[in-house]
């Protein structure tokens, strides 16, 4: 299949405005004849649903949580980028565009990223108008901070909870439309299948998580805004409920999956403390401004620390290896996320990791505390230090923090064209669940930007074009495709409920996570990936034989919910491995050990891999078909990143 990205003609800076003009409009009186289904209520979903309802469309919104405000956008800490140039420090739409393309290691579409940069400024205006309490200066104007991957201060923030404040803004806009009757909200509903009628997405099958009732919902278009799939690794900074089911179901119905192997692994997370661990907690990367990363020089000393015979503070300066400062003298501890993460892994693999499990490196503030005094450090990072103390019971003012990388964000997702439409007409993907704007690595403070740009400022235009094209003829659930899809869901649920084996679903999930982390994590190679594929296939076969699912469908049944999600994760895991295996280059978050520079840095292969890998489902247990969208760079020059 030829992938048409529908990138508009013309100069980069004019593409979006020209495109907006060329898109068809829906007459205001006709808008109320359309129904749009939105799955997911995070930044992308809530903003899209509210904006579309404001335009006059009827919107149905679904979320699996007990309230739309719980979506995991809430957990973003740092901030949101916007090319406002309020600092007069040389920022511009073009610079944000350039930084994002470069940060993504030249694996994103120019036109999409430029649009994102253009809309970034509108997002801030919109959020302020809604009452989002961004940080301000004494003069009453908005404050900014700087973030990794750029040389300007363009990040707007609301203390350490920018994500929550932005989501509450979108949620309030959504609430207003619920009150107006334009949005019908379905909490505690999970989408379990997409319904395609005559080649077009026209509805979904949901399960009411309280009663277990399966419901069919019809709409003129279906928007997926269901977030990332980082939980395929079991341990990640994602919420426990974050899952791939909605996009995976859509994928199996014909939506191509773009770049599934692009995963962002964040270097500063609180390390795993034991087998019981259910989730990892991120700490803002701003900590690396003052913290120094080190491990002991020798394995013997690391062993002593692991056994509790030696305290970190007793390790002499000469016995410490500040490996980031040693290897990257000019960037030091402030190298990008992927580089910092990989180096931590190297140190641990070398047997020099610390902490009880040996899977951690130190982030030491003692120099900074000596230089600036404890109060200064407290003022800057107080709440992060408190959080660390709360979780680990170690006082980071006295002992160095232990940190380790953790899965944080997935750049891959459903393949979408410039209009955010997937390969199924009428099915759209917004926010983290699409693959679009971050290439192979996302810059800090850009996820919030993308989710809101998609929801507030892109989809209201591009969806109109599609809807005007298909016309307002009513859709309902009487088409046999709905009954068929519902039957398929029922069968699947019944099969799951019949599983009375001897291994819990969590055990499978943990096992999958181990495989993914070991072979498809921070560093990947052919042998490992090939092995992983076999392991995952075996795991899948075993799951459908030996998993334990209890209870019945007609109740709140978290065992059943989890089983369905993990089953989908297992299948996705295999596709991620396929994708990682085929991409024999390193780029951004995808590091193939076979493709590195002499100094051990990621080495791209632009001649052979400057494309988006869009995977097509061809049938159960069949290999997926690879489709390529070649990336054309008309404005930026592709270069090798160096942080020496």
């Amino acid at each position: 299949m030829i992938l048409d990205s529908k990138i508009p003609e013309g100069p980069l800076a004019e593409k979006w405005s020209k495109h907006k003009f060329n898109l068809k409009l829906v007459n205001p009186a006709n808008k109320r004849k359309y129904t749009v289904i939105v799955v997911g209520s995070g930044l992308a979903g809530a903003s899209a649903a509210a904006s579309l309802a404001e335009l006059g469309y009827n919107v149905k919104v679904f979320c699996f949580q007990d309230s739309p405000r719980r979506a995991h956008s809430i957990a973003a800490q740092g901030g949101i980028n916007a090319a406002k140039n309020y600092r007069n420090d040389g920022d511009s739409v073009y610079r944000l565009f350039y930084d994002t393309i470069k940060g993504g290691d030249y694996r994103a579409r120019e036109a999409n990223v430029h649009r994102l940069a253009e809309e970034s400024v509108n997002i801030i205006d919109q959020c302020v108008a809604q009452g989002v309490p961004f940080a301000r200066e004494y003069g009453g104007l908005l404050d900014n901070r700087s973030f990794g991957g750029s040389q300007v201060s363009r990040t707007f923030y609301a203390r350490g909870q920018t994500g929550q404040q932005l989501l509450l803004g979108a949620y309030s806009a959504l609430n207003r439309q619920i009150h107006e009757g334009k949005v019908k909200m379905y909490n505690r509903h999970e989408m379990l299948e997409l319904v395609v009628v005559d080649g077009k997405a026209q509805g979904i099958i949901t399960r009411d998580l309280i009663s277990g009732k399966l419901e069919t919902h019809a709409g003129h278009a279906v928007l997926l805004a269901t977030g990332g799939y980082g939980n395929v690794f079991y341990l990640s900074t994602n919420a426990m409920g974050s899952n791939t089911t909605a996009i995976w179901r859509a994928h199996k119905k014909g939506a191509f999956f773009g770049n599934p192997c692009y995963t962002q692994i964040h270097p500063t997370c609180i390390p795993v403390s034991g087998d019981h661990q259910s989730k990892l907690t991120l700490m803002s990367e701003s900590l690396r401004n003052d913290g120094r990363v080190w491990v002991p020089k020798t394995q013997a000393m690391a062993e002593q620390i692991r056994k509790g015979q030696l305290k970190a503070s007793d390790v002499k300066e000469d016995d410490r290896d500040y490996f980031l400062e040693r290897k990257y003298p000019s960037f030091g501890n402030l190298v990008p996320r992927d580089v910092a993460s990989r180096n931590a892994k190297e140190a641990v693999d070398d047997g020099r990791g610390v902490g009880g499990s040996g899977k951690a490196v130190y982030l030491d503030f003692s120099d900074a505390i000596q230089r600036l005094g404890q109060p200064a450090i407290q003022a800057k990072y107080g709440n992060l230090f408190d959080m660390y103390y709360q979780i680990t019971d170690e006082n980071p003012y006295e002992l160095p923090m232990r940190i380790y990388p953790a899965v944080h964000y997935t750049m891959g997702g459903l393949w979408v064209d410039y209009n955010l439409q997937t390969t199924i007409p009428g099915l759209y993907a917004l926010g983290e669940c699409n693959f679009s704007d971050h290439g192979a690595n996302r810059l800090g403070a850009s996820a919030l930007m993308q989710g809101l740009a998609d929801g507030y400022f892109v989809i209201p235009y591009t969806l109109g074009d599609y809807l005007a094209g298909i016309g307002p003829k009513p859709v309902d659930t009487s088409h046999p495709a709905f009954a068929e899809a519902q039957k398929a869901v029922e069968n699947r649920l019944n099969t799951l409920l019949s599983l009375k084996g001897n291994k819990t679903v969590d055990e499978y999930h943990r096992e999958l996570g181990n495989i993914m982390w070991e072979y498809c994590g921070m560093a990947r190679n052919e042998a490992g990936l090939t092995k992983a594929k076999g392991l995952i296939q075996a795991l899948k076969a075993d799951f459908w034989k030996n998993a334990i699912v209890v209870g019945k469908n007609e109740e709140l049944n978290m065992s059943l919910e989890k089983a369905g999600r993990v089953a989908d994760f297992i299948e996705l895991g295999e596709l991620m491995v396929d994708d990682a295996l085929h991409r024999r280059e390193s780029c951004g978050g995808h590091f193939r050990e076979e493709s590195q520079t002499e100094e051990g840095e990621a080495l791209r292969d632009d001649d052979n891999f400057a494309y988006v890998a869009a995977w097509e489902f061809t049938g159960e247990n069949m290999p997926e078909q690879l489709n390529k969208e070649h990336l054309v760079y008309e404005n930026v020059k592709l270069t090798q990143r160096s942080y020496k």
Partner: protein
Amino acid sequence: MSGNMNLTLKVWRQANASDKGGFVTYKAENISPDMSFLEMLDVVNEDLLKKGTDPIHFDHDCREGICGMCSLYINGRPHGPKRAITTCQLHMRSFKDGETITIEPWRATAFPVIKDLAVDRSAFDRIQQAGGYVSVNTGGVPDANEIAIPKVIADEAFNSATCIQCGACVAACKNASAMLFVSAKVSQLALLPQGQPERYRRVQSMVAQMDAEGFGGCTNTGACEIECPKEISMTNINRMRRDFFTAKLFKEEEI
């Protein structure tokens, strides 16, 4: 492992909203002090699943203290014995080996039990749907720096905005009153210039919805602000009262 604990759990089990429910006692054995409270329940649940029995249902999602989905009334207090944290951030080292821990759901008419420890908090959504927003459409808004907001006001609005909608205030209040929650939401927008045009309509609509949901009234015991994981202050409640009485006595907007 040494230092691990054995605990007795008294857990409220209730099959569904209409079931009568009751306490069931479980043993939680070999619990690491580094586990979070929810991870301890995960361990108990894994055990139950292996026996083919229904696990204990409880709400949780982000497990980093910000989504507000986790709840649990632990040993007589919402979110357990420690201040300013949610249950997911409570670690087992806060308990003693051999201790008996009583775990109950949030109790309030407005928060009916769905199953076991999971309750329905959609009343909070409905209160905000009644008016917890600034009525602006997407697009066509002024530049973000057009309105200067004094830092103290922005900070105070932020303090109110940190509410995570978990419902601990209702659970803690002997009257099951939602005043702290509602007032935090009302305050955020009442403080900011963007919220002024609808200020007096909003407070009346939201209070009316709060009453309609069946929450109790505030008697100023102050339990809510002590138990709030985000340390939202009772000042918000008094601010809302001023706005409410001002609206009723002196303003034209009536709802």
